[in-house]
């Protein structure tokens, strides 16, 4: 006769699941690269096609990899902060110019300033796929051993930097 109480129990169990579900963001995709080695790549440099920029360019140091493009409004929004960061922080920023147009991208950096040590030009998006990029802007924190320790999706701000990145940088030794 206890079977009549089963529906009530089953439903009661469902409610906390739904409640917790409400606090999550269904659009956000956690990166499977976390705590794994960052992808190895080599691409032509944005500024000088004869040169290459890639994982070899930043070996043995902690870096930020910022995925950006001129067609991306969020990238425009975070650009100011990236310039500040380039000045202040000991962590160098490398750019991955994703699915963009070279002349437009160069013009952008000229007009707005260039926070990047160097930018790799990923014209066909192949390297972006290796990094699991699905929308710009995205920013990766890679430690000195080449392990991806954090991924941030959406424009970077000072609050997010202080809250999410700084503690991790300190934890992993940072750059001197």
């Amino acid at each position, binding site marked *: 006769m206890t079977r009549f109480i089963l529906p009530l129990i089953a439903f009661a169990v469902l409610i906390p699941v739904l409640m917790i579900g409400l606090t999550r963001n269904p659009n956000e995709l956690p990166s499977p690269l976390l705590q794994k080695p960052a992808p190895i790549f080599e691409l032509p440099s944005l500024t000088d096609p004869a040169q290459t920029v890639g994982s070899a360019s930043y070996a043995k140091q902690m870096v930020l990899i910022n995925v950006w493009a001129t067609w991306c409004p969020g990238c425009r929004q975070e650009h100011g902060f990236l310039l500040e960061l380039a000045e202040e922080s000991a962590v160098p920023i490398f750019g991955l110019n994703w699915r963009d147009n070279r002349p437009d991208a160069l013009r952008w950096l000229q007009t707005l300033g260039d926070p990047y040590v160097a930018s790799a030009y990923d014209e066909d998006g192949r390297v972006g796929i290796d990094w699991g990029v699905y929308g710009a802007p995205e920013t990766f924190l890679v430690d000195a051993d080449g392990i991806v320790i954090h991924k941030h999706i*959406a424009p970077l701000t000072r609050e997010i930097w202080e809250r999410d990145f700084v503690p991790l940088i300190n934890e992993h030794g940072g750059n001197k």
Partner: protein
Amino acid sequence: MKILVAFCLTVAAALPAVAIDTGQAFEDPELQARYEKIISEVRCLKCQNQTIKDSNAFLAGDLRREIRNMIAEGKSDAEIADFLVARYGEFALYRPRVTGKTLFLWIAPGIFLLGGAIVLWRILQRRMTMPIDDESPEEA
């Protein structure tokens, strides 16, 4: 909040539109069929619930291209799935792979059917011996 909106605009789904594949179709119809099946089971990651077959977003096009190349190189379906999962997670596959956490999904139909059969059996056993000589309203 504004930042979230800006980001959302950037990532905003391409509104449902036809994704027309303009790469060369495979000469071998079996490979083409395999290709079409795979792309109909991969999620377009920046869209609101669409396959890369049906999405117009450029990321969908990029992924179709990669998959086409992998098939041409002779990679197996499992290898292609591994490639996508390593970069985008299990979320990218519309057919959930059979792992510890998805096992219940794949055995559920069988288990439910079994449970249903047991319920049916028990009810029938009971009712089979009970009287059927009651009166009732006209044809239902």
